[in-house]
């Protein structure tokens, strides 16, 4: 955990592309919210392997959104169920139900549907928010943060040595 946090700070302070960090956060969000029995989760994990996204940040956000998913489970179920049973959307769902691929995604599960909608809805806002926050952090907070007394104290701690070791 300490290593992940140190890595996280290192990436925030490094010159790594903010887009990659934002993408990692989005994938972490998606994997965290998506229920385990959907094929979509496997697809997301494969994409994470292939696409350059910061894995430490992804794992951190994944853990965070696993907790969010647990808390938001009833709301996500309600949302998914409302969509799946909505009269206007029935033709779409019925046409998807004819396909084995879509059946494999378990799209007709209320939690999968609710989570998918939440992921789609949150993907872009989270992406841009994280990206903006990283840029702002590097421009405005990083310098000030280094000069704080607490930072000086931390530099002598085990955590800082871990951080340094990762940098080397």
């Amino acid at each position, binding site marked *: 955990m300490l290593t992940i946090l140190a890595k996280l700070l290192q990436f925030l302070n490094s010159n790594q592309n903010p887009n990659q960090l934002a993408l990692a956060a989005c994938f972490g969000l998606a994997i965290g919210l998506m*229920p385990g029995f959907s094929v979509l989760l496997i697809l997301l994990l494969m994409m994470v392997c292939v696409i350059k*996204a910061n894995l430490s940040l992804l794992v951190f956000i994944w853990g965070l959104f696993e907790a969010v998913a647990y808390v938001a489970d009833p709301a996500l179920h309600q949302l998914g169920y409302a969509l799946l*049973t909505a009269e206007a959307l029935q033709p779409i769902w019925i046409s998807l139900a004819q396909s084995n691929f879509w059946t494999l995604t378990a799209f007709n599960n*209320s939690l999968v*549907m609710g989570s998918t909608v939440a992921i789609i809805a949150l993907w872009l806002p989270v992406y841009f928010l994280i990206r903006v926050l990283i840029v702002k952090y590097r421009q405005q907070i990083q310098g000030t943060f280094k000069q704080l007394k607490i930072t000086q104290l931390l530099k002598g701690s085990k955590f800082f040595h871990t951080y340094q070791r990762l940098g080397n």
Partner: protein
Amino acid sequence: MKDIIRWPGIVFALLLVCLVYFLLEPLLKLVIEQTGSQTLSTKVTLDSVQIDWSEQSLILEGLEVADKDQPMTNLVEVDHLALQIDALDALTGHLISEQANILGIQFNTPRAESGEQDSADKSNDSEDTESSPGFDLPGLGLPDIDTLVSKENSLTYKRYKKFRQYLDDTKADYKTRLAALKDKQKIADYKARFKEIKKAKGFMEILSAASKAKDLKKDIDKDISEASQLNRDFKQAQKEIKRRIAELKKSPQQEADQLLKKVGIENGTQKISQFIFGPEMKAQMKKFKNWLSSINDSDTNTNENTDNVNTKTPTPERGKGVFVQFAQANPLPLVWFKNTELSGDLSGIGHDFLFKGSASHLTDQQTLSGQPTSLDLNLKSDLVKNAQVNIVVDIRTDQKLSLSFDVKQYRLDKTPLSGNFTIDSALLDTQGNISTINDQLAGNINAELNSVSLKTSGDSFKKYPAIEQALTDEDHVTAKIELDGTIEAPQFDINSNLDSIFDTVLKKVVDAQLAKYKDQVTEKIETMLQQELNSSESSQSDLIGMGDDIAGSKDIFKDLIGKL
């Protein structure tokens, strides 16, 4: 592109795919074993699972399904099961195969290790092993003579009672008439009148006496006439009594004939084949009924399971959600083997046959496959030259089942037919069709047994060795069986050449037996009648004794006339 793609990640993903590829078979084996065990509530094991990606086929070797009631026995064992499957259908839980091979099917084989499951339901479904009932030979068990002949029910005794009544009435009648004729007061009156006539003196008195004498004579003539009539009537009555006694003496014979008609030969000529083949047919129909019930039950369970999925209420466990079902244009059954080659061994279920054949549209939900299931099996055994069985099950709307078979030269050894009959050896040729629609049953079976050695047992046959001999001498037996009615209460109409053989022999046996029996019955009735007639002898003697008085009654009045 370089900024977006993580090349080591691609290698990792490929490694992951390779790992899955190599681990898929053991994983699938585990999934099949666990899912099968849960679904069937008994232990399901596999030796190996092979996936042929190029052929899109799945090969299961050494499939064993344990009997939950007998954990050391396999309910069914399949050596080799090869399926051509659609991978996407399989991933969505539908085992659909255009071509399947299920080879080496065996039933009730021993297991190397116990198939007991902790959660297995321990139901005590004891198999109904009702044995074929025996029977008594119809009409040959004649009733005991004392039971058959009793005073209360005897026709002869009734006739005797009538005779006795006649005798007593006649006796009383003649007694009355004789008493009236020989009335002392009347005779004294006649004598007194005669004396008075004789006393007459003088013309006028003599004239009056002549008139009185004329009246007296008229009265006495009337009595003489009455006495003559009485005598004639009495002679007639004597004749009637003799006639009635003669008739009574014939009665035991007539009564014996009538009694023997009731228990006689007509009951003995019923269809013996009904009794020979009937119990076995009933036992086979019971097995057929149980098998049919099991098919219906499994179908009902499948439908119930489907219903459960469709009617899930939206109260999910956390992290599970609810599956909403949508109508599918072409819904698929869970299992559907469109064309299947089958082979196996039926010895485990009590039939020493190997079988080979094909099945089409084996499925758990015929309503979804839209096709009836049919099986064409060729049965092989050292005991049979050729045996073909065709079964068609159609439960899409009604519960329809048809079974047809053609068996050539099936050697039967020591095969029990009923409690009293055993086929010691025979060669059976049989063809038949049996069909059921819901509960209604129809069908016909032709059976021809050649080189038959039929053994009989039981007291009935020991008593009638001629029947036993005739049946054991017969080396060719044919039977035509018509099935009708319902599965619960099947009706059999069995016609066999044994019927005529049996009837002929039985008639001879029964005729001889009945003749002897008839003599015994007649003798018994005659004895009874003789006893009764003896008891009425005094009454008869009294009546006959009245004959002298009746004959003498006329003389009294003739004497009076002579004097007059």
